[in-house]
Structure formats: C-alpha cells, structure tokens
C-alpha cells in the first residue's frame, strides 16, 4: 500500500484565518463596533460586508458543534425547549449550546460565547429552518431579523425570479443602514461582489482539480478547506488563501501525490457531511482505496453568476442558481455532469434525518441515476449533527459492502 499523503500545508494558514475571523467577531460584539450581522451560509453576505458589518455564519458554528461532537450533547436541551428532534440539527445544536451556555469556540479560541447579533439576515433558499433559527435569537436579544424568502424547486431561473430577489435584497437596505450606521454604497457592493467572484473562481478550481486521477484531495479535505469560501467570501483573505491552496494542490498533482493511496474507486457524495464522523468515514474509505472526489455539498459555494457590473442581479442569480434551490430534473443533470467529468462509478446519498432539503434520495433519485448512468448507488442513513441518528456499524458495513460491490462489477 503506498504511503499516506503528507498533511496539507495550507491548513496552518486556514487555521490562522479562522482564528482571526472568530476573534474579530468576538471583539466586534464586545466593543459594539463594527456591528455584527448574522448571515445564513448562502445568504446575502456581499451586501452585509459592503455595508460594513462583521459577518457571522451560524451554520459554520453548527458544523463546528458537529465536528467536535458537542452537538449530540446539546441537542436534547433544544428538544426539551420545544425544538423537535426531527428539525435541522444545526438549529437544535446551536440553540441547545446557547441555552447551555457552551460553544466549541471556547476551546478553539478562548471565546466565551457566540457573537451577539445586531441584526439577523436569512435567505430561505436552502430551507425554512434558517428563518426559525434566527427568529429564536431575534426574540432572545430583541434585535431585528430581516431576510429573503426565496423561490424553491426551480427548473430554470427566470428573469421574474431574479427581479423578485433583487427587490427583496433592496428592501433589506433601510434596516441595515439603520442598524449598521453606514449608508449603502453601490461601489462598495461592486467591490465585494468582485472579491466573492474571485474567491468562487478559485474554489471551483480547487474542486475541479479532484477530477485528476489520482485525486489530490477528497471530499473530506474539501469539507475542511471550504471554510474560507463560506465565511470569508467577499474579503481579500479568501482569495489569497485559495491561491495558496491551489499552488499546493497543483504541486501535489505534479508530484503524483494521491489523497487516497492506491486509489481504485472514485465516488460522489450527495448530501450533508456527517460532521462527527468525518475521520471515521474518511479512514474507512481510504483503507478501501475509494476516493470521494466530488460532492454537491462542497460545490454549493460555487457562485458562477457573480458579476460586479450587475451586483444585485448577479447576487440574486447566484443565490437562486444553487443546486438546493432547483428541481430534481436539474439536480440529476448536475450530478450526471460531475459524475461523468470526474470518472465516478458510485454515488453515496447521505439521507440526513433532520435535513430533508439536502437528502435527495427521498424521491427515488438514486434508482433513477443508477438506471440512467449505470452507477452503483448507496443510501447511508444518518445525520449532519445528531449522532443519535447514525449507527457506526451499519455505516461501516454499508460502505464496505458498497466498495466490494464496485470491485465485483469492475472485475
């Protein structure tokens, strides 16, 4: 068995950036300047940056709660407060942690609590839960909550959808001016959109490098290195970070370094990560010489439409064109393109119990794709954060059997 690849060196820089991000937010919240805006992960971050807010992403905090396995400890507290165990476990983990007065930021950065919001800004393009989640904090702190109620299940993104979202973005401005104390400036928005575009171009390139055989990175690496694209897009640091990561990955390719030593199988991951079991799943698949080379989830921070010449329209288009906003026909075509381009022979659908909008197996898509593309598909039952819904042994046997099946079919 060839050697494991060396650790990704850029990780050190990413950790510094993330520390700077959270410490900056903590300072802003304590000093009251700049004002703190909470934003959903695919919400209008560009507008918030352009209007001078420090932008905080609770979904990133939700993922941290999952990855540190604190989530399963704190979710019951939110359940007891009336938030069902069947709804988004980012929400229940985050609210549960808040009610218990704990956060993984304490151990990571010495930060006592999540930064108090001055305004909460959601976009329901991914789900309704984000609005309910933010509403909890809006009531708790008595701060304004504003947002965009998005279209969903779109085949084609049409001009009237875009016009509607643009109008909703513009409606946010008076509240944001009032809370933040800064006048809206179209040129600052253009610059932020430009930086987001630069970030997205590089992040796309990082993901596309995994099409190489062997792949220099896997989905499990991507879930870590996507953090700057999520929380720092619209800022120059994210652009610089991906230049660094790209250079390292291109060197890996030149040196023939494989993320999965002896790569034999190439897989696609559809759905949310299982944050508390990333290592277990990564090790298991790596031992089976199976590389997860592409995923819908990590692709969700590719925003091809950004264009500083039309900042509002391009933002609207970018946030409507996302996979999660689209209908099943679009989603199947999308997966087909990535599967074909990346030489994928098997698709793992993670059915996350508390995240129906990211669980695309539930309306027979695996069966349709298997028939159409001659792929092996597997549905893995679990959850993004709530490990009470995930069985290690079931997952191990399922994945092992899946790779065995691919071996048999390849023989």
């Amino acid at each position: 068995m060839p050697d494991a690849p060396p650790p990704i060196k850029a990780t050190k820089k990413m950790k510094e950036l993330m520390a700077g991000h959270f410490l900056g937010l903590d300072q802003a919240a304590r000093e009251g300047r700049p004002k703190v805006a909470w934003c959903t992960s695919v919400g209008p971050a560009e507008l918030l940056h352009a209007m001078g807010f420090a932008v905080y992403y609770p979904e990133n905090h939700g993922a941290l709660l999952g990855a540190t396995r604190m989530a399963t400890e704190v979710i019951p507290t939110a359940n007891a407060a009336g938030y069902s165990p069947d709804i988004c476990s980012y929400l229940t983990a985050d609210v549960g942690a808040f009610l218990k007065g704990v956060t993984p930021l304490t151990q990571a950065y010495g930060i006592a609590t999540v930064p108090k919001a001055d305004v909460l800004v959601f976009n329901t393009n991914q789900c309704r839960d984000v609005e309910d989640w933010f509403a909890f904090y809006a009531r708790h702190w008595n701060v304004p909550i504003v947002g965009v109620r998005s279209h969903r299940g779109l085949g084609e993104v049409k001009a009237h959808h875009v016009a509607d979202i643009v109008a909703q973005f513009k409606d946010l401005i008076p509240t944001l001016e009032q809370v933040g104390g800064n006048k809206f400036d179209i040129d600052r928005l253009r610059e932020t959109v430009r930086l987001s575009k630069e970030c997205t171009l590089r992040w796309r390139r990082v993901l596309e490098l995994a099409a190489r055989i062997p792949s220099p990175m896997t989905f499990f690496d991507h879930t870590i290195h996507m953090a700057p694209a999520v929380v720092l897009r619209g800022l120059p640091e994210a652009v610089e970070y991906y230049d660094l990561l790209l250079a390292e990955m291109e060197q890996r390719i030149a040196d023939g370094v494989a993320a999965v030593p002896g790569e034999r199988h190439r897989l696609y991951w559809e759905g949310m990560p299982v944050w508390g079991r990333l290592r277990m799943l990564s090790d298991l698949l790596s031992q089976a010489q199976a590389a997860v080379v592409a995923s819908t989830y990590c692709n969700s921070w590719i925003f091809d439409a950004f264009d500083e010449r039309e900042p509002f329209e391009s933002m609207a288009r970018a946030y409507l064109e996302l996979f999660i906003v689209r209908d099943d026909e679009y989603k199947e075509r999308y997966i087909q393109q990535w599967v074909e381009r990346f030489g994928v022979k098997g698709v793992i659908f993670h059915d996350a119990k508390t995240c129906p909008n990211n669980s695309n197996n539930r309306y027979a898509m695996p069966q349709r794709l298997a028939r159409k593309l001659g792929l092996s598909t597997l549905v893995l039952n679990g959850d993004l954060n709530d490990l009470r819904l995930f069985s290690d042994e079931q997952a191990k046997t399922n994945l092992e059997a899946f790779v065995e099946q691919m071996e048999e079919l390849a023989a």
Partner: protein
Amino acid sequence: MKLAAGIDIGAAATKAAVLDPMGRLLGGAVLRTGVDFALAGARALDEALAQAGARPEELTAVFACGYGRKNLPLANETRTEIAAHAAAAYHFFPRALTVIDIGGQDNKIIKVNAQGQRIDFKMNRKCAAGTGAFLEEMALRLDLPLERMDSLARQAEDEARLGAFCTVFTATEVLGRIREGAPLAALVKGLFRSVIKRVLEMDSIQGAVVMTGGVVAHNPYLVEMMAQELGREVLTPPQPQLAGAIGAALLALRSREPAR
C-alpha cells in the same frame, strides 16, 4: 484435501462452515455469539471441522463475515455478510436473484445479476424492527418459546392486524389484540406478517427470490407466507442459517483459485 472455511459472526449467532474444493458443505456449526467474538468464532470453526472430520491444517483459507468479522484473528480475510449471502445464494441458485436475509439485528435485500455479480443492496435503517430481535422480543412478551412460533403461526385460522413500525409500540398493539380476545396463533401470524412487511418495504424485488438467515431457518412458515405475499416461489438454500458462513467459505475458495 484443500478445504476452506467461512465464519459468520452475527450479533446473535456465530456460524461456521467448512467446504471442500468443489464448494460442498462438509461441516457446519451454529453457536450463540456471546461477548467474545474471537472465542465464538474459534469454537464454531472447531465444531464445523469436527463435523467435517477435518483438521485445521487442511484449511487453505478462512474468511470471516458478519458483525464481528474484524475481531477474529484466525481469519485470513474479511468480507461483508452482504457479499457472503449473495455468494451462497448464487452458488445454490445460479441465476438473477433477490436475496432476502433476515438476521438477528439486521435485514438485507441483495440483488445479484445472472452472472453472480452484486448490483445493489439495502440494509434496514437504524431500527431493528422486522429482524430476529423483533421476534425474540415478542416471544418474550408473549411468554412463548421461540421455537413454538412457527407451528403456532401455521395453525392460525386468523391473523391479528399489527401496524406499528416500532417494536415497543407493536408490543403495545399486541396487548390491545389480547384484550380484544385474539388467539395466540393469530398474534404470532400477525407478527410474521409484520416481519414480511418491514422487509418488503426496504426495496423492490426482481428475479428469483432466495431467503437466508436464522429466522428463516427456524420459521419455514414465514417463507411460505412470503411466497404467498409475493405470489411467487421463494427459494431457500439448504441450512439457511449457515448461508453467510458458506458464502464466506466460497469467497475464500475463490480467492485461492489461480488467476485466470
């Protein structure tokens, strides 16, 4: 003679099978797994070897499958029980198949093509409703020896309707039917129907149907009920509880064949 063995360490029972080079079963054993997987595996193999009249040094390969497959140092390699059941089913019935394995804690539906390659499989989700553990729990609640269930179900003139997914809630439903005066036999038949429903909602069925596993071995009437439900013949291999062990042994034999 060059022999091969398979050991299937399941959550409830550990099974071993010793095969000759032609894949014929020479000896088999079924023991309770208990808490020491390695010991259970070793004992089951000893028993199977004794039955085969063979010595350990005659074994060219031992493959393990099942829940405890990674905990058996004497095994040369491991395979999943999904691969093993598929291999055994195809060995006995070489055609396109859907294999239904009802185990102690999990159920599997495995699809095999006409060439014997696995093309799809499903395991039950986290819940163990519809598995052997479900029937064990119900037998306990009904104060009924497990081995009486099959004959009782067969005698039933009626069938109690049970609708819940959850094992515990099914027990509550059973109490309700008892209060309504349902005979014991009708309750047991209703429980068998519940197992069949849980299995059939996992996946579609195509090709010939083969049932394997301990529940099938001890409850042949459940196979008859499944055949009625599906409206087609349902096949079972000889000694269906040994199917995983036989399959693992077949895979062990194949691994020792010279490459073609």
